[in-house]
């Protein structure tokens, strides 16, 4: 294994291009004759639409077309129907309101796009959108998650009679309730998992062109996988997917919100074909705040019963998740499938009751965001464990030691019928305690005290599930000159696949790192079975498919080599780019050259060294990244401000393909987790339904000074047992570990005041108020 092989901290191939301004993002491309799109968006949280007047817009200089949703529907546009079907225990199906693209009858959230204006310039289109005149009749609205679930709440989709889409339960609750009632120790918590704006740094953009001779729409837009996007948007447009080419160029971050069926993107694709001209829409940042899916937004009530020794007997979790005005493809799925499958995470708890009520509100729809249900689930468990430690008089690490699934029980079949193949949760926690110098904390606390600061240390153990969809296709081709190309079904949008896959091909086929090219993000060249990148899946799904493609190349290569060496194929040995029979050998480059010449090939063998592998993982071949994060903070008790002073992470990502890149994934995930816990909150005004945090002026994105250096370590003794590479996902672990580790640390800092919990984000005022209240309480 050379310096460019698997496991090496190879510098990224992507970097020089991106560092010198040669990246190509969707907004960087222009087409001659393109029209610019702008959208009139609902200023109301909830309103009937009585009439849409476009005349004024059409009179604005430079405006060429105004399209309403009726125009789109007449032109074949279909409504979005969420691809989710949950039922309650009585068999009643989940209610899914139809989501029309540019609805003509009713606006259901502030920012909902209602009319599309096309103009010669972005300024003209915008000016036109500004004078669209709609006769609205405002209706009551509800945005609060908890309130929407109440039986007295205003119902936003009257045809259903309730905002609750379905009451999903994993089982009856009697047994669990009885166990908890009888338990010697009980802890009860109420959590708000705050709504977040995902805000990848590239604002969404869509460009579409139409080729009349081929009846082909080409859509450029950031996705996280072009093939599913092709299927989705073709479905909405009512056309055969072969008539839609989807291209994603460089994409500026995804985090789970890219590949969705967004109305603007669909409308742009539709318009290009309608007017037979290229159409471009570039979203403003503030626009994306009310059009890209939001993340999280749950309310959780949980009760846990424990025995005399602090062993959990039973667990009850009730979750309300705010779906938004319409269900996206994932909203309700996140706590049910995402979180619900993983709960109770790394803990050895057999008896649990899990209830989820997805509710509709007049807000932007929520959907997958880094972790997609697993950070929320881990947050519930970790806050419960901290509360249980307090209740049972145990330390926070001891309560976990007693309840985490021990190594001896691996592989462990969960109640949801998943198998944790590997993972030493207790060992990982113990190692992290050591790495973080947990035992030396008291000394550091005293030192902070001298400077007037309250220091706290927090601990979080987490398990999450990686993998996403169960199939992926990759293709590896070696041309006649021995140069390799990887055609990826996955889609890198910052994860460094161009580098990591090249490391793999270098390792498996001995081809020079610099002789390996990378192609992704175009339905014309992406393998037909390609899916994409989300759910921390690419190392396993893409990685295994590449390994197997390379394996197929070796098999074919051996046949060609045998033919060239006039030997029996079974006697050919392959190693590090050489095919060897006895003392004779042929390089893979020579085999590749021969492969292009039918005369040099054995009979019946097709020319070319070009292999695809469609990997379909078995139902039990999931992988479960896990780890332990320890966070230390200093709180200024007078102001309530919090500074992170130390952060230690030990992650079990199985085999680490490129330490530089995997470290980066941990840092990025932790930063997003800290953002949720410290500075971020998407807030709606309860009366008007307006999104109060409408831009970066009000929405607190974490900056460099909010974070400290993160000491990230990786286990090296827990390879994944269910895939060829031994990899586990790495992308979402940080988002699972950071929020609970941080909150645990702050509560530890505030333990002199007896503060057990503060809801995220832990703004200075919230911390200060908690202290003030606690002081008043103590004085009383």
């Amino acid at each position, binding site marked *: 294994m050379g310096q460019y092989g698997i496991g090496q901290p190879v510098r990224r191939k992507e*970097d020089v291009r991106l*560092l010198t301004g040669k990246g190509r993002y969707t907004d960087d491309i222009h087409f001659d004759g393109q029209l610019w799109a702008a959208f009139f968006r609902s200023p109301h949280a909830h309103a009937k639409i009585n009439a849409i007047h476009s005349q004024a817009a059409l009179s604005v200089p430079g405006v060429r077309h105004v399209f309403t949703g009726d125009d789109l529907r007449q032109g074949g546009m279909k409504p979005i129907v969420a691809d989710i079907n949950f039922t309650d225990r009585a068999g009643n199906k989940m209610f899914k309101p139809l989501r029309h693209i540019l609805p003509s009858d009713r606006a259901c959230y502030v920012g909902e796009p209602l009319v599309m204006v096309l103009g010669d310039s972005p300024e003209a289109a915008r000016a036109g959108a500004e004078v669209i005149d709609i006769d609205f009749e405002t209706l009551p609205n509800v945005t609060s998650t908890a309130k929407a679930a109440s039986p007295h709440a205003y119902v936003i989709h009257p045809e259903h009679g309730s905002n609750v889409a379905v009451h999903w339960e994993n089982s009856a609750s009697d047994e669990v309730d009885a166990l908890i009632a009888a338990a010697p120790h009980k802890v009860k918590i109420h959590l708000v998992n705050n709504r977040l704006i995902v805000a990848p740094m590239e604002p969404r953009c869509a460009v579409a062109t139409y080729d009349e001779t081929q009846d082909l729409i080409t859509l450029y837009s950031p996705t996280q996988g072009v093939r599913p996007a092709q299927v989705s948007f073709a479905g909405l447009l009512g056309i055969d997917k072969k008539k839609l080419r989807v291209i994603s160029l*460089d994409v500026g971050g995804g985090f789970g919100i890219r590949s969705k069926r967004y109305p603007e993107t669909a409308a742009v694709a539709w318009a290009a074909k309608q007017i037979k001209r290229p159409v471009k829409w570039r979203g403003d*940042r503030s626009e994306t705040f009310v059009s890209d899916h939001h993340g999280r937004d749950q309310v959780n009530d949980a009760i846990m019963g424990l025995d005399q020794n602090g062993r959990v007997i039973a667990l009850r979790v009730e979750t309300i998740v705010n779906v938004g005005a319409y269900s996206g493809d994932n909203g309700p799925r996140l706590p049910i499938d995402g979180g619900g499958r993983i709960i109770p995470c790394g803990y050895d708890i057999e008896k649990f009751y899990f209830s989820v009520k997805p509710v509709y509100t007049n807000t932007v729809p929520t959907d997958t965001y880094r972790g997609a249900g697993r950070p929320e689930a881990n947050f519930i468990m970790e806050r419960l464990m901290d509360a249980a430690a307090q209740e049972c008089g145990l330390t926070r690490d001891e309560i976990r030691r007693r309840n985490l699934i021990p190594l001896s029980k691996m592989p462990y079949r969960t109640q949801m019928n998943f198998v944790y193949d590997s993972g030493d949760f207790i060992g990982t926690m113990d190692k992290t305690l050591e790495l973080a110098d947990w035992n030396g904390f008291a000394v550091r606390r005293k030192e902070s005290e001298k400077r007037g600061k309250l220091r706290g240390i927090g601990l979080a153990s987490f398990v999450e599930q990686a993998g996403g969809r169960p199939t992926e296709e990759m293709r590896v081709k070696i041309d006649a000159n021995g140069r390799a190309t990887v055609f990826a079904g996955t889609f890198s949008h910052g994860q460094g696949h161009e580098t990591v896959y090249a490391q793999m091909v270098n390792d498996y086929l001995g081809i020079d790192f610099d002789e390996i090219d990378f192609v992704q993000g175009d339905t014309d060249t992406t393998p037909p079975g390609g899916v994409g990148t989300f759910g921390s899946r690419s190392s396993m799904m893409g990685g295994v498919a590449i390994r197997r493609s390379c394996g197929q190349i070796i098999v074919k290569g051996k046949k060609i080599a045998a033919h060239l060496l006039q030997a029996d194929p079974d006697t050919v040995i392959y190693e590090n780019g050489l095919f060897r029979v006895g003392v004779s050998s042929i390089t893979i480059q020579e085999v590749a050259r021969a492969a292009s010449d039918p005369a040099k090939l054995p009979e019946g063998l097709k020319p070319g060294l070009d292999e695809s592998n469609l990997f379909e993982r078995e139902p039990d071949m999931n992988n479960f990244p896990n780890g332990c994060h320890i966070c230390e903070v200093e709180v200024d008790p007078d102001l309530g401000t919090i500074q992170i002073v130390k952060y230690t992470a030990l992650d079990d990502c199985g085999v680490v393909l490129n330490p530089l*890149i995997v470290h*980066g994934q941990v840092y990025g995930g932790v930063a997003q987790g800290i953002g949720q816990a410290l500075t971020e909150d998407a807030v709606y005004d309860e009366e008007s339904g307006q999104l109060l945090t409408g831009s970066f002026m009000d929405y607190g994105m974490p900056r460099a000074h909010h974070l400290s250096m993160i000491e990230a370590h990786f286990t090296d003794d827990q390879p994944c047992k269910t895939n060829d590479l031994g990899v586990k996902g790495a992308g979402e672990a940080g988002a699972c570990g950071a929020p609970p580790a941080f909150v645990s640390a702050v509560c530890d800092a505030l333990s002199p005041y007896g503060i057990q919990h503060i809801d995220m984000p832990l703004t200075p005022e919230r911390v200060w108020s908690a202290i003030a209240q606690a002081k008043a309480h103590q004085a009383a």
Partner: protein
Amino acid sequence: MNITLTVNGQTLTRDVAPYLLLADFLRDELRLTGTHVGCDTTQCGCCIIHLNEKAVKSCTMLAVQADGAQLTTIEGLARADGTLHPVQEAFRDHHGLQCGFCTPGMVMMGADIVRRLPGADEETIRHQLEGNICRCTGYQGIVEAIMDASSQAKAS
């Protein structure tokens, strides 16, 4: 209105509308798309370039304000022979970028920090990045890269 300015060493004259933003001028008129627009409230820093050797947010300047100025964009930071600026090289070494969208602004700000504050420590650099938002990296690789380049600048 006619403006004459030097961009990455090349002097040029263009006729621009007064309300054209400098970032849009660079991206749409000059087709230098390396400078990015990531927000509309002057916070994210993706649009940072050097104007008369100072880091500025090109999304919050009019092209006409740059008349007579000397501009360097990310495309012009490396040397003509391709040698990367020390900050660019440091970003490579320390994995200071993932998706690359905030990167041009980060690098231009980083180069500005290194010029003004050779030998800057970690805390200083973190605060100097107040006007740059990254969603991918958690800033760790970025801070390490700028610290590295800054200490190199002090040594030389």
